[in-house]
Structures are given as C-alpha cells and as structure tokens.
C-alpha cells in the first residue's frame, strides 16, 4: 500500500509538471509574453525586445517553461499588468469565494444524487425511476448557462424570490455564507449539472451492487430490507462514487467560469473570464495551472481513497 501511494504520488507530480509545461506552451502559442500589457499595444519594438530580455521572454521555450515551473512551485505566478497586482494576490483574493461556491455545489449535488440514484435502482423501471432519469438526462444535455437563464427567468424575474445577479456587496466568503439568498441560484445551477452526471452513475452502481451475492445472502439470512439497503447496499454502491468525485473537478472548474460569469459572482471563474477579454496571460496561465493541479490532486486522492476503502483491491 505504501509503495502504491508513493508510486502514485510520483506519477502525479510528473503529470502536474507536464500540465504546467503544456499550459505554458499553449499560452505561448496563443500570445505569450505579457509585454504589450506592460508597455502598451503600440510599444517601440526596441523597448519590447529589451523588456522581453529583462524578463526572460527571449529565452528558448524550454528554458521559459523551466523558469515558470520553478517559480510556480514557489507560488510565484508573475504579475498581472492589466490589473496592476501580482497574480498570487488576485488568486488569493478570489479563491475563497470560488471554493465556497464549488464546495457548496458539490456537497449539495452529493446530498441529492446519492439517495436519488439508490432510490432509482431500488425502484427500477417504475414511473418515478423513468421520471428521474428523464430529468437528469435533460440536465446532463443542457449547457450550464441555459439552465441558469431558466432559473433566473423563473425564480428571479417572475417570482422575485432570488436576485438575478449576486449583489456587489457580497465580497467575502462570510458575506456569501450569511446572505444565502444571494448565492442560491449560482449554487443550484452548478449543483444541478453535477447531479445529472452523478445520479446516472450512482443508479448503475447501485444496480450492480443489488445483483451481487452478498445482497442475496443478507436477504436470505432474514435481515430487514432497511438493514440490507442501509448496511450492505449503500456502502458498496458508494465506493465507485469516490472516483467520480475526483473526476468531477474539471467539470466544476469549467462550470465555475460559466456560473460566475452568468451571475456576476467575483471568483476565480470571473477572474479568468475577464482575463480572457483583456488577454491577461499571467492570470490565464496561473488559473489553468491551478485547475490542472487540482484535477491531478483530485484523481490522486480518489485513487488512494478507493484503494484504502475497498479491501478487494490488492496492490502489488
């Protein structure tokens, strides 16, 4: 087990470095040096060359990548000339709000999807199973912003229950927490899309578990249906979900960009969107790298958790 964890961690570090290198190469390809942001779009070519030399943007790509990775390891992400702040400060300022939004959405999605999937599997092929499948299937096929717009139309413009945009007063995580109405629609939007993927998976996982011999044995020895489901089904059916939560991170990050843009909630997603509009390369690069590292970490933790939780998995 220890050997497995060490090997997985080493692989994860290599992949993370690869993510940094590929992101840097992509950004370099798309535009690269932030020199025009620093000196203005009509900067003198001599000054541009001089600036690039001073800041190391004239070196071969492989050296630039090496420098970037080395700085990133020390959490130095460069300087956003558009916003006049260091990228690390910008990320630090917005990360909490995004973590709150994504975390709440993920928890809400799990709270809905796990019981829903199990209930669907237990009452398979009933009217309620078909109805739930139809709804989750529709959500699964829906762009996040379209769902968000429907929610805004219905709950904000027609019924006036929730505000259509997050108020600009909600600047801290604490404010988000103490003004739940402000964040209800963004969280629900992000959660609904996550539920769509989760519950489909949960249903099939529970169906697989229901067909196993240990369920038959539990019933045969006369356990009540409630105990069979709670003790034997739920715990086994939830195992594959550990992997799925790890795999959900890229979807949540992409969902953040859409949701935060739609509801004007100031988090990392909105920061990324604004950086795209202003071609603020250091910010784009930093968030892409963070997204990649989070994904790698999520998969790593999920793999180790599954190995630890499932005694059937034997590791060499």
């Amino acid at each position, binding site marked *: 087990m220890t050997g497995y964890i060490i090997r997985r961690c080493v692989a994860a570090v290599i992949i993370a470095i*690869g*993510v940094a290198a590929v992101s840097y190469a992509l950004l370099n390809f*798309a535009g690269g040096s932030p020199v025009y942001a620093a000196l203005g779009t009509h900067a003198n070519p001599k000054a541009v060359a001089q600036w690039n030399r001073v800041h190391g943007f004239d070196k071969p790509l492989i050296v630039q990548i090496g420098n970037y990775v080395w700085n990133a390891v020390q959490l130095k992400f460069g300087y956003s000339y558009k916003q006049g702040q260091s990228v690390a400060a910008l990320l630090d300022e917005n990360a909490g709000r995004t973590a709150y939004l994504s975390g709440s959405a993920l928890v809400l999605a799990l709270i809905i999807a796990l019981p829903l999937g199990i209930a669907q599997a237990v009452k398979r092929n009933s009217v309620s199973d078909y109805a739930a499948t139809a709804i989750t*299937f529709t959500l699964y096929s829906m762009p*996040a912003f*379209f769902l968000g717009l429907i929610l805004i139309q219905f709950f904000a413009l027609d019924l006036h229950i929730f505000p259509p945009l997050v108020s600009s007063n909600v600047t801290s995580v604490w404010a988000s927490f103490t003004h739940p109405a402000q964040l209800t629609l963004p969280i629900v939007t992000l959660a609904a899309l996550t539920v769509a993927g989760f519950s489909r998976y949960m249903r099939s996982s529970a169906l697989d578990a229901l067909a196993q011999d240990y369920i038959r044995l539990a019933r045969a020895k006369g356990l009540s249906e409630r105990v069979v489901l709670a003790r034997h089904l739920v715990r086994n059916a939830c195992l594959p979900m550990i992997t799925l939560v790890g795999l959900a991170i890229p979807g949540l990050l*992409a969902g953040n960009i859409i949701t935060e843009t739609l509801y004007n909630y100031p988090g990392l997603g909105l920061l990324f969107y604004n950086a795209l509009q202003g071609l603020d390369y250091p910010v*784009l690069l930093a968030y*892409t790298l963070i997204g990649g590292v989070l994904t*790698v970490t999520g998969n790593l933790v999920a793999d180790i958790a599954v190995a630890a939780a499932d005694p059937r998995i034997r590791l060499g």
Partner: protein
Amino acid sequence: MEGVPPFGSPNIPTTAPEGGEVALITSGWRLAAHEFFSNRLAVVGLGIIVFFIVFCFLGPIVYPTNQTLTQPLLSDMAPAAAHLLGTDDNGFDEFGRIMVGGQTALEIGFFAAFMATVIGTLYGALAGLVGGIVDAVLMRFVDILLSIPLLFIVLILATRYHATLISQSLIIGLFSWQAPSRLVRGEVLTLRVRDFVTAARIMGGTRRRLILRHLIPNALSVVIVNITFLIADSILLIAYLGFLGFGLAYPTASWGDMLGNAQDAVSSGYWWLVYPVGACLVLVVMACNLVGDALRDAFDVRLRKR
C-alpha cells in the same frame, strides 16, 4: 459514464437460452443494428437528429429569410405571422436564424468529433500495438492533456484565432481525442490476446489481415459509440464559446452565439430569442447522448437479449 444501464429498457438479464435451441448465425453488426432499432429511445434520438439535419439544411429552402442584411427597424419584434419566432436585435428572422445557426452547430460538432476520433484511434492503436516505453510516454501525455479542463484550452486558443467554422472545429477536434485514444488502446490491448485473434494467427493470418479483419472491426464499436458523445460534447462546447463571447463572426452564427446575448434578452422579456434556440440545442445534444447510450448497449454482448 461507463456501465450505465440502458435508458428505459429492462436491467435484469433475460433468461438463458433453453437447451437445444440454436440461434441463427448472423453478423455482429446486424445483431447490433437489430438491438439498436428495438430500443425505442434510440429510435427517437435518431429521429430527432435526422429531423434537425433536414430542418436546418433544407428548411431555408421552404422558409427563406434574410440572414445577411441587418434591419434595425425590424429588431426585437415579438412572434407574429410574418416572423414565426419574431426577430433578433439585428432584425434577423429568429426562426430562419435557428436553421442557419443549426447548420453551423451541427457542422462544427460533426467535424470536430470526426477529427478527434481519427486522431484518437490512430494514437491509441499506435500506443497499444507498439507497447513498452512508447506506450507509457504516449499515455502519460494523454494523462497530462486530460488534467487540463478542455474548456480552458479551447478558450485560451479562442483568444488567438478569429472564430470561423474551421478554426472552432480544429480547436475542439485537436484537443478532444484523449478519450477515444484511451478507449482504442484498451481495446487493442485486450483484443491482442483474445482467442479468436490467436486462432487467426495460428491459421496463418498475416499481420495486415489481423489488423484489418480482426482488430479494427472489433475496436470500431467503442469508437462509434464514443463519436456520438463527442458530437454532443462539441456542440455544448461551442455553445459555451458563444456564450462567453468567442462565437463566430457576423453574419454567421451558431446556436451558442445566438445565446450569447441571452442574458439581456431574458431581462428584456424577449423570450423568443432564448427558449426556442436553447430547446433545439438541448434536444440535439440529448438525442446524441440517447443514440450513444443505445449504441453502447447494442454493441455490448453481455447485455444483449438472445
């Protein structure tokens, strides 16, 4: 989603064949086709896709509209007899625009999915057949690309390139081949050691014959299933690009671009600019997913009814 049971069909395996019963020998493809068409939801999904192809590509002949010249005087009109779904802020007929926008959305979706499939199949087959260190390096590169959310990659590249039908298809196609490459590699690895491949080799089958007659046709089923999901994902992805303002340049538009101003339209009460086109988008993506699910079940021998 691996192993999701067929949408709406019984999940319990049917009874085993009775002793002495002999099944007709038909090709696997015909069996799969039969299985596919006996799934009602699959037929509905296929019907929706065919309907939208006809609607978008032949519709403008029956319902010709002006989609190139802006007409400010006709902007944002509610649905009426002259304009079945009203007009947008440029004065374009919305019903006609859904047809034209659907053409681009479908073209980009199909083209990107096709490209990703070709690249992924070749890449995965190479990794699986060569094996060893080459395989390890190739697959670690796939791991790296899979760790960067696709939307990030596509958005970053979209800042550099002027959005056209070709550039959007290329950007999406060139970065969404990781899933098919993994599938094909896995398939090649398991097929190589299967008995029928060994048998063919023992009977003197050449390497070329093994690849063309045995490996490719058997690996093809996972590729075909995946292509439908790729189409669905690509159509969703261009919708996101359009919404975030990286859509096609005027006067062309895809469904996603038409939803780019949807937020303003919703707050102004111009519902006809949001819900019809959004519904079309959701329907097509859902139909692709339905067809994909049904195809996977049809190709999956273990789920097949006898």
